[in-house]
């Protein structure tokens, strides 16, 4: 062992040396029991004490190394033929078969088996032995079980440099596969050597992704085509749109040209309902929404600038972070922006300026998720800053319902496709909240900590049972929700719609009130003559009313005072003369005042009653 460094310090510099010596035991303190203290206590007899006699056990866990399994198929070929028979030669096989058939054993066996078999066949034909007897009674699911969710599977990013799972998409048929887009969203902090790949996972095999997608730039969003499950659309970090066909391989099938693509990462891509099934549109924080046809990706079909002043200025445009499109309302779409405003647009508007229909503002920060309620498309959910809000298209001033401000930033949200009153949200502290509006509106029905790092995205499977959430380190967790949260309760649709309607009505009333107040304010400040006169009259009326009130109170007050003075008079008789005068004076004055005030009051009152 080589000496790396030598520390030198003189012994004299250390301090006093310890010299140990032997010494006998010394008794320092001897406290004898004090019987007087015992008097403070009472002896307890009998004493109840639990004694347990059981085998002591210890818990130990061991983690085995991961066992890699691979599925392979085995191809059966005909075998078992005896050596002299060649299975390919028809003659030989026929000869062999004939020989077997002559065998006595064979004949007996077949007759026996035949009997048994016939019995079963007839049985099958006679009754359906697996018939459900009480099918008419629908199982009344009184789900008294508490809502719960458990993790089924975890898919980890196989790369060494971990990237955030930014978007998830379920396979449209059967939902057995999950496409996950990985990228690093921190501005220009993508580490060197970070892979651009995104994966498609098979739910059965969490060890290795099934298909790898290799774009030229990391993917921020990834969507399966709902019509054609082999085609995927991805939005890249550099603003391009890429399209894959799984049958062709893992390289990009179509890629949009850089000149006509977005200038910022593409945050939202959605497939459109079209006859060809090849149309899609994308949105990005550069403020543009573009429509594409994947057959011709060289330039977009249409571009709309998200400028709410309707001047088409890119400089004024708001960056789009989320995109919403419901196939039942094909001409409308909504965009959630970085500035916290939701813009509702109409695709079929004639002029580009009219494309933007209206805006809803209410969030303090970027709106990360935007989705219409699958049962009531007029209501939509937005998730941004520290709250989740539910809006109705009719009330533009504010949202109709909102959650309280949470401790952590909310990153994504989605409605449940099965229950109209249930939605899910994910937060930066790694928790998944499940809200059930029918059950409780102020708190989530269930709050689960999924992982230690922040959760970035969330996707619910079409049957409402499985939820996949992606986290900052690229782990995608698959959770299964309890049946109470994923089956439609009876009467739930009505309850949910009545909740939304009630809240919308409330907001409408508030809106109307606000508008009235604003009009009043405007009326006061504008100062036109008629208005002023009316206002003056109104003011006069108000004034008179307040005056009358004051006078009324004064009258009462003076009465009280007078009574007090009288009382004082009676008690202080010797000072009659002295007190009388001031008392009389006060009396008279009070009386006069009273009369005056009464008159005034009456007058005032007369004025106010036209």
């Amino acid at each position, binding site marked *: 062992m080589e000496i790396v460094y030598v520390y030198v310090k003189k012994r004299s510099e250390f301090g006093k040396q310890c010299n140990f010596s032997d010494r006998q035991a010394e008794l320092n303190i001897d406290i004898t029991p004090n019987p007087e203290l015992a008097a403070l206590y009472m002896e307890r007899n009998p004493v109840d004490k639990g004694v347990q006699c059981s085998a002591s056990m210890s818990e130990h866990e061991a983690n085995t190394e991961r066992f890699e399994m691979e599925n392979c198929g085995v191809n*059966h*070929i*005909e*075998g*078992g*033929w*005896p050596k002299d028979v060649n299975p390919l030669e028809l003659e030989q096989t026929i000869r*062999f*078969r004939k020989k*077997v*058939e002559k065998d006595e*054993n*064979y*004949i007996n*066996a*077949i*007759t*026996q*088996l*035949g009997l*048994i*078999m*016939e019995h*079963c*066949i*007839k049985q*099958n*034909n006679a009754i*359906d032995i*697996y*018939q459900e007897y009480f099918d008419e009674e629908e199982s009344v699911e009184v789900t008294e079980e508490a809502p719960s969710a458990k993790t089924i599977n975890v898919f980890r990013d196989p790369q060494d440099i971990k990237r955030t799972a930014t978007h998830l998409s379920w396979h449209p048929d059967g939902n057995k596969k999950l496409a996950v887009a990985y990228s690093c969203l921190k501005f220009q902090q993508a580490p060197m050597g970070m892979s651009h790949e995104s994966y498609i996972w098979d739910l059965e095999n969490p060890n290795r992704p099934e298909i790898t997608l290799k774009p030229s730039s990391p993917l921020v969003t990834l969507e399966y085509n709902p019509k054609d499950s082999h085609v995927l659309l991805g939005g890249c970090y550099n603003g391009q749109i890429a399209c894959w066909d799984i049958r062709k391989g893992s390289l990009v099938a179509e890629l949009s040209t850089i000149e006509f693509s977005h200038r910022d990462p593409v945050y939202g891509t959605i497939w459109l309902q079209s006859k060809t099934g090849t149309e899609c549109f994308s949105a990005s924080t550069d403020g543009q929404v573009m429509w594409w046809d994947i057959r011709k990706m060289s330039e977009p079909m249409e571009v709309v600038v998200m400028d709410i002043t309707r001047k088409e200025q890119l400089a004024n445009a708001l960056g789009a972070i989320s995109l919403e499109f419901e196939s039942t309302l094909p001409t409308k779409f909504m965009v959630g922006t970085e500035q916290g405003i939701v813009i509702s647009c109409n695709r079929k508007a004639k002029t580009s300026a009219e494309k933007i229909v209206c805006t809803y503002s209410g969030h303090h920060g970027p709106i990360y998720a935007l989705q219409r309620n699958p049962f009531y498309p007029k209501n939509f959910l937005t998730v941004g800053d520290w709250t989740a809000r539910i809006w109705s298209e009719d009330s533009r001033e504010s949202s109709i319902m909102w959650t309280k401000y949470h401790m952590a930033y909310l990153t994504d949200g989605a409605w449940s496709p099965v229950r109209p009153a249930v939605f899910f949200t994910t937060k930066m502290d790694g928790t998944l909240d499940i809200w059930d509006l029918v059950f409780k509106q102020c708190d989530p029905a269930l709050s689960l900590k999924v992982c230690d790092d922040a959760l970035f995205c969330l996707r619910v499977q079409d049957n409402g049972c499985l939820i996949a959430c992606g986290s900052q380190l690229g782990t995608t967790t698959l959770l299964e929700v309890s049946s109470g949260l994923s089956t439609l309760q009876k009467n739930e649709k009505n309850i949910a719609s009545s909740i939304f309607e009630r809240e919308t009505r409330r907001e409408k009333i508030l809106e109307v009130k606000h508008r009235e107040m604003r009009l009043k304010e405007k009326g006061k400040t504008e100062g036109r003559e008629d208005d002023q006169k009316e206002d003056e009259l109104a003011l006069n009326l108000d004034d008179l009313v307040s005056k009358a009130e004051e006078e009324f109170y004064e009258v009462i007050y003076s009465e009280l005072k007078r009574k007090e003075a009288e009382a004082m008079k009676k008690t202080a008789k010797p000072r009659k003369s002295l007190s009388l005068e001031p008392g009389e004076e006060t009396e008279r004055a009070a009386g006069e005042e009273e009369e005056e005030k009464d008159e005034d009051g009456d007058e005032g009152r007369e004025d106010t009653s036209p």
Partner: protein
Amino acid sequence: EVEETLKRIQSHKGVIGTMVVNAEGIPIRTTLDNSTTVQYAGLLHQLTMKAKSTVRDIDPQNDLTFLRIRSKKHEIMVAPDKEYLLIVIQNPCE
């Protein structure tokens, strides 16, 4: 009478196919095409062996008399013997 028995079985309502397989997995008699027969023969033979050994393991005095596999599409019935297997695929009418 072997012919008779087999013909009778085949003529029952819902029966899709019948086959007789020997202990080595060679199909002796079949009404389906070759590839399907070979597949059924191989797979069902193994399954029957497994079922038989299971029954025997639980109770050595016991023996497998009949095996019924009901699937979504149809029902596969296997009648085992010392040397042969009679397999019938039926579509149970419900």
